């Protein structure tokens, strides 16, 4: 059914559903697969059962139910894995990637206008937003090719989040990348450019030795912060985001963000004092060092955090 309903105008993509995966397909419990099929809304827009089975098998093949490679998942583990997926969105995305006409109709009816609204919200301009949405829509339709094969971004969607969230994030990523390219890879708002530049005519009252000691203490204190504290400090002090924006990203109340931010600031300050005292300064001298003009402290927080990026990815790679 799915092969017969392949959209004539939509060419077959490189990520077309592969139905010849007996090992993967056989790995899914048949009864669970039946339950997933009945719970899916694929039949409402014309998805065939074999297409559904192929899509489910393809989703499992990449992650092996979230388990280590080669491990056999029980039926409960398989059920938990599928419960954590947005299976309907995943099926729709894969069906669209294969050129299913009814799937595209369903996709357009369901996501076209939200996609435009999201693009307008991201760009802050209706014209730019519609352009951005149309560009992404063209990509989704498979007009871009790589090495002679059509590449549909929907193939990278694996159902961990909602399809609309994925589309919004993709739009935001396209917009940020476009903006960064236009501004020579500068971030959208980089307040640290002004903050990092030391004042040329500022009187340098603090001795250079003390300043270098203070810089080391600050760098060490920032490295010792946990991921959330560093994110809070970077988002609030570097990006200039509001407490509400940070709260939305973290999914907490902005009062919580404010409290956590205050604690992170106090903890960082105490850690800097401890680092200064550990380097041989008295408490009074450490406090006086903290009172130095920030413009005299040649600490590029952005650069400092960027340097720690490698460490973060090393941590992630080790996972």
């Amino acid at each position, binding site marked *: 059914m799915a092969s017969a309903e392949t959209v004539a105008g939509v060419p077959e993509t490189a990520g077309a559903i592969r139905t010849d995966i007996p090992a993967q397909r056989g790995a899914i419990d048949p009864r669970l697969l039946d339950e997933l099929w009945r719970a899916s809304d694929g039949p409402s827009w014309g998805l065939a059962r074999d297409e559904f089975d192929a899509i489910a098998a393809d989703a499992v093949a990449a992650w092996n139910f979230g388990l280590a490679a080669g491990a056999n998942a029980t039926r409960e583990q398989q059920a938990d894995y599928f419960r*954590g997926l947005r299976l309907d969105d995943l099926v729709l995305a894969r069906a669209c990637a294969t050129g299913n006409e009814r799937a595209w109709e369903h996709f357009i009816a369901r996501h076209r206008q*939200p996609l435009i*609204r*999201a*693009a307008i*919200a*991201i760009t802050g301009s209706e014209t730019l937003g519609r352009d951005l949405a149309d560009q992404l829509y063209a990509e989704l339709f498979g007009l871009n090719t790589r090495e002679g094969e059509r590449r549909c971004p929907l193939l*990278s*969607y*694996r159902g*961990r*989040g*909602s399809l*609309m*969230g*994925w589309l*919004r*994030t*993709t*739009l*935001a*990523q396209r*917009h*940020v*990348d476009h903006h*960064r390219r236009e501004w020579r890879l500068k*971030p*959208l708002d*980089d307040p640290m450019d002004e903050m990092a530049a030391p004042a040329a005519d500022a009187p340098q009252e603090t001795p250079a030795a003390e300043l270098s000691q203070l810089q080391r203490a600050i760098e060490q204190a920032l490295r010792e912060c946990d*991921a*959330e504290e*560093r*994110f809070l*400090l*970077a*988002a609030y002090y*570097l*990006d200039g*985001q509001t407490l509400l*924006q940070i709260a*939305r*990203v973290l*999914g907490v109340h902005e009062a919580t963000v404010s409290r956590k931010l205050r604690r992170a600031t106090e903890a960082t300050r105490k850690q800097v004092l401890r680092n200064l005292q550990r380097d041989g300064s008295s408490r009074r001298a450490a406090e006086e060092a903290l009172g130095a003009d920030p413009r005299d402290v040649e600490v590029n927080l*952005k650069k400092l*955090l*960027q340097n*720690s*990026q490698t460490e*973060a*990815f090393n*941590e*992630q*790679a080790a*996972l």
Partner: protein
Amino acid sequence: MNVNGQHEMHTDVETLSAFTEQALSAKERGVVLAHLAVCGRCRQVVVLAREAASIEVAARHGAARPRAWWKSWGLALVPAAGVAATGVIAFYVHERAMERTSEVAKLEQQRASEKTAAPPQRLPEPLAPAAPAAPTTRVDVPATPRVPANPGSPSRSRETERPGEVRREPTTEPDETASAPPAAPATEALNGPATERERYRGSPAGEIHGDMAYAYAPSQPSANDKTPSEAAMHDEERKKQSEETAEERRQFAAKAATPSSSNDSEVDKTGIDNAGSAPAESRTARSSEQVEVDAQQLELQPVPDVSAGSLMRMRSGAFSSALMARPIHLPSGLPVLSVASSDHRVLAIDKKGSLYFSEDSGLTWEKVKRQWTGRAILVRKKNSEDAAPPVTTVPESSGSTSVSDTLSHPETVFELVNDQSELWLSADGRIWTAK
């Protein structure tokens, strides 16, 4: 997480999307947070995606969410405010009506007490509270030309004016009782008013109606305003008046019960001077009329001659007063200055001098178009039989034709006096003709 190159080392879209939707495990979330802490680009992506999601959610909820309950009451607040305002106004009007009713009741009580007690000592008392609602029914008695003054000279008439004392009419007033000599009644009239005026100078009513008092303040008698004989008699009588007043009032109280119709004219001429010879009933009625006039402060009626027929009219006037005892609320909202009534027809002048006419005993009022000059200060009733004589005496130059027609009508004739002591007549209360 893509690690193919510097650009692709950023967290992939699906992971960022799942992070934004709180769909990651704690461990994965920590990894993404660690990356976001050092990657401004991914922070921007996450923030923008989250902002777009918030706007989408807000738009979806805004379309589906019903209006807040208090917003739906927005239109209902308007009539509610109107009802509240109406209630406040109604309460205010009710309170004001109750206050006036209490004042009228107090006035009636005072009148009743005056009727039972000696009237002369209590004359000034009801002045203050009775001003707005006190109806005035003029004692319709044949006027006598006691004051041979020039009608064009208002100072002459003002000389004899005083609160609480009926005013003598101008010399052009027809003299029905021509038997009385002109000089003697004028002297008698001057005696009483002088004393009363002295007494009323300190009364609070003069303060209440200060404007009207001011209107009549310049009316000081002068040598040119009256004849030498009148002036001399006036001075003498004024001196004697103060000495004799107390004793005369005591005599009045003692002789009040003795009816003496033969002295009616004397009672009317001298007011309280000859009160002792006046019949008790007419005396009481007369006193009541004086109180009403005092309340109006501007009742400048001429001293009528009380006759047997006039007593009946006084009774009917008292009856009309009783009808008019309820508060009078003119459309202008101003206090009533003067009131005259005949049957169900009522004429009233407010403090601004506007004349209002009512055909239903004061229930509804209509404003009478101004047909006179100056400021109307007094309206009074004059029956046709009283007004009949002027047909022959009214000068032709003062519109005698229409007046004659009016006066020849058997119905009641109303008189209107302005602040220049000029007189207008009307048979129906609406059409006025200068006399």
